[in-house]
């Protein structure tokens, strides 16, 4: 293949600006799939992705396009996720590209992730083609979009392609622009193999499937592939491309994107970001690679039924094969016994993992409320990392605690600036800047404790701006902070899985709110259940769940003994979804109570 006819690109956009729909149109237009085979949004393979309308794993699809100049081009379209939690995957995907289509919803304009993704593309010196999408919408405001592009991204608004992916408008122009404006890859076919692992997925039958961008040389079946970071060598069993179905090909060459199967059992054996080369014919220098992705949010995951521990372990291991960002270590809780402390990129990532565990592995789980990581300096000068509130050392042993801060960028229509600032202040935010993108929209920048964002920031932001705000964030640093641990006691005993860390100024209010919420969530029991919140030994809130007073079926005659017994058995079965702690039956959602308070 001639490098000059290859184009590697991706589509970047704020969530819901129509990325997957455009990808579908490009596939359809180039005949990669027949229209009758189209399910909407074919690039989103996982059932969950389709339901949630977001894309989790980047995929690479090869399509062929005959341009107006009559030449045939090989396009490698690399899909990227759209949610703020998955930013790191975007930057990985960009490494495999020379260009990006920057998609902007004509009715929404530039949003926080439009900015964040565009800047990632600029950093990597990609050719960026602006596309204003959804121009068919009545609320479309093309001029405004162009103005925003010019002001906030320094892109020429006149160069933007006007499109409606839904109606297929502008697709031809986009394909031509890819040919004209995105440079072909550079690379040397004759040099030793050098390729970037930009993503991977796990297939239960074939093991790890690597997504590779070849920089130099070529790779084919039988090649002895060497990973430059570890030196380990694998025999290549198959190379191929997605069209969008997997298709074996003979060789992947410099400039191309495709997959490699090489009998790799686990994702950790071949890390994303590593450089591949050929054993015995090594490239001289490895590619820069990626930064490790660090989990930011943690929670405990416990099987409701203790016997499912091994099943949960297996399931997590399997998920981890395809999800490098997920971390987990076994932990024990007095209340919930054996489980795992799991690390996630963010709340959405956490919810997706939890849902997959329950849906794909039929696990019945209890998740504890999410928390961030704290760096604790102890009085003996030792610094420890605490990812579980119940592990926070005794207050007398603590010199100080540092918590992670993020830089949040919020784009919002001007009339909501006040409410956003009010929310950020309430969340202990430090205002950095407010600038107007145009006469109607502002970009507000705040430094915020990540812990505050983990609670309910995103939901509150959406509701206080009627859904108009968009958010992007990045981790800044760790800062000393006056946080304390609040314990929750049921029946006088601390339930470790309900402990949480919170800023001292909010501890009393949150403690009371959680106690009240638990009173709502935990059903009446046979016995009275006192609920207390405490800091150290000091009780800061108390509620009481009164004992249940009536549950018996009044009448029992000879004819309905069987029925009564079955009712009891059913009732017993229903309670199996609850966790027994002491003599208290606690529903699963109680462990998330701290998230559910206003």
């Amino acid at each position: 293949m001639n490098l000059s006819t290859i184009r590697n690109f991706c589509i970047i956009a704020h969530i819901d600006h129509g990325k997957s729909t455009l990808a579908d149109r490009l596939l359809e237009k180039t005949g990669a799939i027949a229209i009758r085979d189209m399910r909407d949004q074919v690039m989103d393979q996982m059932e969950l992705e389709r339901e949630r309308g977001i894309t989790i794993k980047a995929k690479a699809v090869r399509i062929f396009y005959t341009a107006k100049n009559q030449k045939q081009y090989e396009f490698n379209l690399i899909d990227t996720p759209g949610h703020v939690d998955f930013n790191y995957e975007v930057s990985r995907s960009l490494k495999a590209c020379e260009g990006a289509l920057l998609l902007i919803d004509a009715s929404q304009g530039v949003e926080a992730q439009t900015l964040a993704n565009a800047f990632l593309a600029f950093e990597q010196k990609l050719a960026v083609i602006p596309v204003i999408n959804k121009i068919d919408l009545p609320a479309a405001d093309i001029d405004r979009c162009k103005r925003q592009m010019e002001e906030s991204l320094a892109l020429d608004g006149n160069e933007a392609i006007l499109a409606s992916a839904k109606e297929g408008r502008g697709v031809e122009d986009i394909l031509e622009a890819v040919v004209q404006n995105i440079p072909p890859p550079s690379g040397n076919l004759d040099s030793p193999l050098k390729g970037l692992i930009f993503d991977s997925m796990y297939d239960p039958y074939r093991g790890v499937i690597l997504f590779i961008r070849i920089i130099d040389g070529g790779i084919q079946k039988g090649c002895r592939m060497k990973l430059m970071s570890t030196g380990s060598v694998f025999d290549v069993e198959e190379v191929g491309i997605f069209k969008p179905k997997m298709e074996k090909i003979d060789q992947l060459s410099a400039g191309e994107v495709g997959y490699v199967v090489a009998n790799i059992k686990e994702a950790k054996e071949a890390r994303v970001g590593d450089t591949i080369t050929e054993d015995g014919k090594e490239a001289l220098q490895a590619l820069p690679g990626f930064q490790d992705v660090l989990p930011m949010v943690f929670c405990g995951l416990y099987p409701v039924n203790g016997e499912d521990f091994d099943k949960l372990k297996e399931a997590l291991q399997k998920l981890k094969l395809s999800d490098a960002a997920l971390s987990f270590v076994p932990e024990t809780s007095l209340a919930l016994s054996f489980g795992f402390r799991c690390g996630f990129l963010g709340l959405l990532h956490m919810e997706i993992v939890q849902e997959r565990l329950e849906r794909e592995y039929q696990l019945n789980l209890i998740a504890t409320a999410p928390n961030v990581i704290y760096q604790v300096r102890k009085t003996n000068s030792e610094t420890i990392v605490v990812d579980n509130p119940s592990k926070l050392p005794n207050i007398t042993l603590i010199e100080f605690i540092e918590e992670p801060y993020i830089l949040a960028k919020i784009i919002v229509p001007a009339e909501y600036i006040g409410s956003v600032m009010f929310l950020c202040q309430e969340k202990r935010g430090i205002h950095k800047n407010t600038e107007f993108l145009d006469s109607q929209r502002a970009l507000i920048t705040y430094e915020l404790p990540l812990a505050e964002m983990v609670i309910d920031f995103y939901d509150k932001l959406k509701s206080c701006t009627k859904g108009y705000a968009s958010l992007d964030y990045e981790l800044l640093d760790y800062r000393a902070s006056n946080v304390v641990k609040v314990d929750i006691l049921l029946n006088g005993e601390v339930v470790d899985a309900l402990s949480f860390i919170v800023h001292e100024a909010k501890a009393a209010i949150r403690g009371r709110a959680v106690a009240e919420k638990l009173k709502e969530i935990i059903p009446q029991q046979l016995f009275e259940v006192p609920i207390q919140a405490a800091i150290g030994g000091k009780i800061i809130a108390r509620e009481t769940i009164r004992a249940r007073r009536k549950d018996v079926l009044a009448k029992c005659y000879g004819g309905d003994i069987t029925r009564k017994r079955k009712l009891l058995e059913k009732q017993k079965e229903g309670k199996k979804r609850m966790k027994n702690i002491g003599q208290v039956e606690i529903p699963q959602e109680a462990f998330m109570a701290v998230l559910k308070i206003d």
Partner: protein
Amino acid sequence: MNPVDGNFKNDTCMETTWNGSEAIHASHIYFHIPFCVSLCQYCDFISFTGKANLIDFYVDKLIEEMDFFPISRSLKTIYFGGGTPSLLEPHHLEKILHAVQNKYHLEGHAEISMESNPETVDFEKLKAYRRCGVTRLSLGAQAFQTNVLQQLGRQHDWHRIQCAFEDARKSGFENINLDIMMGLPFQTSDQFKKTIQEALKLNPDHLSIYALQVEAGTPLSTRIKNGLTLPDDDQVADEYMWVQDILQSNGFDQYEVSNFSKIGKHCRHNWAIWRGDNYIGLGVGAVGTVGTIRYSHRDSLKEFLQIRNGHFSTFLDQEFLPLQTRQVERVMLELRTSQGVLKSNLDFVFQDRQKKTFFEHLISQKYIVQRGDYYVVQPEKFFVLSGILDKII
């Protein structure tokens, strides 16, 4: 053996199916009379309206069915339940009881109990029932207030109840029960208390006081789906405690969750069932339990009447009760009674660490007390028995 003593491990007179040939060790018979003048809003027992013309045939069929159940023991109790058993004319009753005497051995002091609706009986009829041998009459009174009775779909008023009660006394009934409901959607607490006070004025020997259960498929459940609200559990629990107090101070003994009697006037039939005795049920919808078998009649009146040549077995559904199920049922039923459950029958509970801990907690919290060899639920905790049971079964 005496089943009341609680050892049921060897009373297996039948293995897995019943074919009508072996002798049955049972001392209690239940006759289901599935006829009513009208159906009550809350009732889900099997009953038919407008079929009174079939009672003659039905009675004959009941008698025929007795042959299918050759009982070897002498009968201690007979119970006519419904439906509305008092739709039976005295000659029907006479015919049935005559057949009982012919086919089985009836003890001299057997209890013969009969449910009745106040509007279906008068002095003459009650006198005739008494003459046939009925010893215990149960009157479905339910409530004092006429509007409440109407809402329930009942056909009488309190005056009718008073008359029926006095007629029953005059006819010689020395054991009369009144059925009263609580937790009704149409009744205030004060109205419920008034009902109890009025009932006490009649000086009944027995009171069955049932908290309303909303059964799926009843007209009442439809009304509740459409927005009719029930009194909350707290209110009903308050009423229950009130009723326990007032009946105790009026000389009643609470011998089961919903049943109160003067000394010696408890319902021996129900007591036997709650204590795990074998019993035979006859008629449409009736259920019986003998050893490891529980059988139930289907609910088609037409099919029942068409059974030919004694082929009753085709009309019965049978359920095998494995040991574990019998253990569970025993605890479930016995804990409903004031006698409680025999310690040794709780072995399966004590063998489970979690259940044992829970049971000990129940004792420490005085939900359950030990009385001799028995564990007994405290009467004030009867009302949360389901929550106790689902953790120990």
